[in-house]
């Protein structure tokens, strides 16, 4: 059963401007982790904001747990918990004071609230800093608290908007593990990220967004199958700036489906890595470039994005 139905959703911030979200449709099934993967500006946050009743859609509609977000926003808010992309905390208050306030705003109180606060602090490994002011926290601790607030009251649908940006690997691991655990305990999760590894690791299904549009939707296998029986060849150059020229030289060559460059790396989507490698080496030589490492990969979401857009996910 679909816990969330998104139908032809459109958001335009200014009447003359482009569609920040452009005719997006998808469903989130109860019990799954659904990821929206896309680069910055793809429209992920805007989509989450409409699902969470914060933004009014320009067109289309969203139904959460049978309630239309525009007609019954309060019923929708009862079901959801949100950890926004930008930290939304009171930095002058302690972790505990924050949790208490947000818990009360969610309608929790008394012994239940106390239990929830203690539990969430423990889950996010913040118990020993409960009384410390948030402004003294590290970036990772703030992120964890921001997440904990979104989980208060164990909402049935949890929306996490890029919960791992700009934090240390340890906190990141902590959050990813927690999302899995929470999902195992029954929560449905809408997760957005621009890290394909996270989407790959966590999700049952993934929607890929770019420039406001949902350009692909499915399980990891379904998505990678779109690329075909291809392989990915990643060449790292000694010359940082030479990637673009090599990618250009290889574009259109036989058996090279896509070529893109970023950070001194050239990513090729090819029929056979074995066949393409000599060609790539020759072209590099023509351009006076030397190759430092060669990596052959199975198709992944990065390749899928490249395949669909002609651009790398992290430009």
């Amino acid at each position, binding site marked *: 059963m679909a816990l969330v139905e998104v139908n032809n959703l459109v958001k335009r911030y200014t009447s003359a401007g482009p569609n920040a979200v452009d005719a997006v449709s998808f469903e989130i099934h109860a019990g799954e982790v659904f990821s929206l993967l896309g680069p910055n500006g793809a429209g992920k946050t805007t989509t989450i904001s409409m699902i969470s009743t914060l933004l009014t859609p320009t067109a289309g509609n969203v139904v959460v747990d049978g309630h239309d977000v525009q007609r019954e926003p309060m019923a929708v808010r009862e079901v959801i918990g949100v950890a926004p992309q930008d*930290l939304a905390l009171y*930095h002058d208050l302690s972790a505990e004071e924050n949790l208490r306030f*947000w818990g009360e705003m969610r309608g929790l109180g008394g012994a239940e609230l106390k239990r929830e606060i203690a539990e969430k602090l423990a889950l996010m490994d913040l118990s020993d800093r409960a009384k410390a002011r948030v402004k003294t926290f590290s970036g990772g601790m703030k992120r964890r608290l921001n997440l904990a607030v979104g989980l208060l009251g164990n909402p049935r649908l949890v929306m996490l908007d890029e919960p791992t940006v700009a934090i240390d690997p340890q906190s990141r691991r902590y959050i990813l593990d927690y999302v899995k655990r929470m999902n195992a305990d029954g929560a449905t999760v809408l997760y957005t990220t621009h890290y394909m590894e996270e989407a790959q690791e966590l999700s049952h299904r993934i929607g890929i967004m770019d420039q406001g549009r949902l350009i692909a939707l499915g399980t990891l296998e379904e998505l990678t199958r779109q690329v075909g029986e291809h392989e990915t060849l990643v060449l790292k150059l000694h010359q940082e700036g030479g990637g673009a020229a090599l990618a250009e030289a290889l574009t259109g060559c036989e058996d090279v489906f896509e070529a893109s460059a970023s950070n001194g790396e050239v990513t090729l989507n090819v029929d056979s890595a074995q066949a393409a490698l000599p060609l790539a080496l020759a072209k590099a030589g023509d351009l006076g470039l030397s190759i430092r490492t060669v990596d052959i990969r199975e198709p992944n979401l990065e390749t899928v994005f490249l395949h669909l857009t002609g651009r790398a996910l992290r430009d």
Partner: protein
Amino acid sequence: MQRLRAMIRNEFLLEFTSPISLFFFLVLPLLFTAAVGAGLGGMMDQDADTPQEVRIPLYVQTQDQGSLVEALLAVFPEANLQPELVEVLPEEQFGLEIPAYFSAALLNGDMVTLTLHTLPDNSSSFAVEQAVRAAQGRVGGAALVAKMGLEQARQAGVVSTPEEELQFFREVLNEVLATAQQPPATAQVRWAEGATITDDANAMATSAEQASAGQLVTWVQITLLGAAEVLVSERLGGTLRRMLVTPASRFVVLLGKLLGRLALGLLQMTILLVGGALLFGVNWGRHPLAVALVSLAFAIATVSLGILLATVVKTRGQAGSIVVGLSMGMAALGGAWYPLEITPPLYRQVVQILPSTWAMRAYTDLLARGANLVQVLPYVGILLGFALVFLTVGVWRFQRYE
């Protein structure tokens, strides 16, 4: 209900996270009340024990040659005024017009209109006005006493002819004026409501009253308009958006923010009222309910303006400077820093667009003019009218916020 309580508590927590805020909330306002009260005291409260060296010339044009004019003129020097009778009042000088019916009316206990020409830019204007007011109060009071004495004398047969009566009256009048060297207390002056000054028909607050009411209005405005700063920083900090995805309606969220600030403002008002009474001897307790209603209405109007500002202002810095600037500006213009009575009539008309003006009027009426609850109700109504306008626009804009 629980959410409103949570939001109010949160407002207090946030306000008092740093000791500095307590300083602004409490310490500074009381210090300013003391300092301003002392400063105004030098200017406002004429003290008979310490006559000033320089006497201010006051030109007097009278159509009445009666005995009370004489008495009035005789009282002026005590208040550092040097009266001089003239046919025509000179321009650009302090001048007083006494109508022909002055003595007769005072003796009948009727209203008399004295016209005082003051100099708007002159720092002594205020002192002159006070002095004239005090003088007419003394003479009016003395005249009433003398008149009552004359009635007694007449009944006892002590006086019979009009000449004897006049003689008797003058003696008693001089006696009373001489024994009452100190000007009677403000309340008693008003008991002898015999004469008024056209320029403004009202008594003025003492320096302590003016300072207590004025500083209350000033500092409480900073707290209440601070709703703008708080809301803007919640908007920019993302916490407002987070509130709007909890199961609380937009209305409840806005109401919670409003009530939180309002509660803070009312707490501060209470402290400043009690402080004004205990530390500076201001009689706030004459009509407690009236003071409470005026304060509440003023607080609601001001916090509503704060909410409205929040929907207009873009950045936190902007909000901060607007809050402080507007608080100070509205306080000063509205008569919180110096009495409106010394300002020109046009000015007084213009500043009626400020809630602070009406709060100051209501407070001054309560403190200095013996007004009661019913008499300040119109002010309460006007202040609530301001609140309604600010809130309507503010809520409308807030509902459209994304």
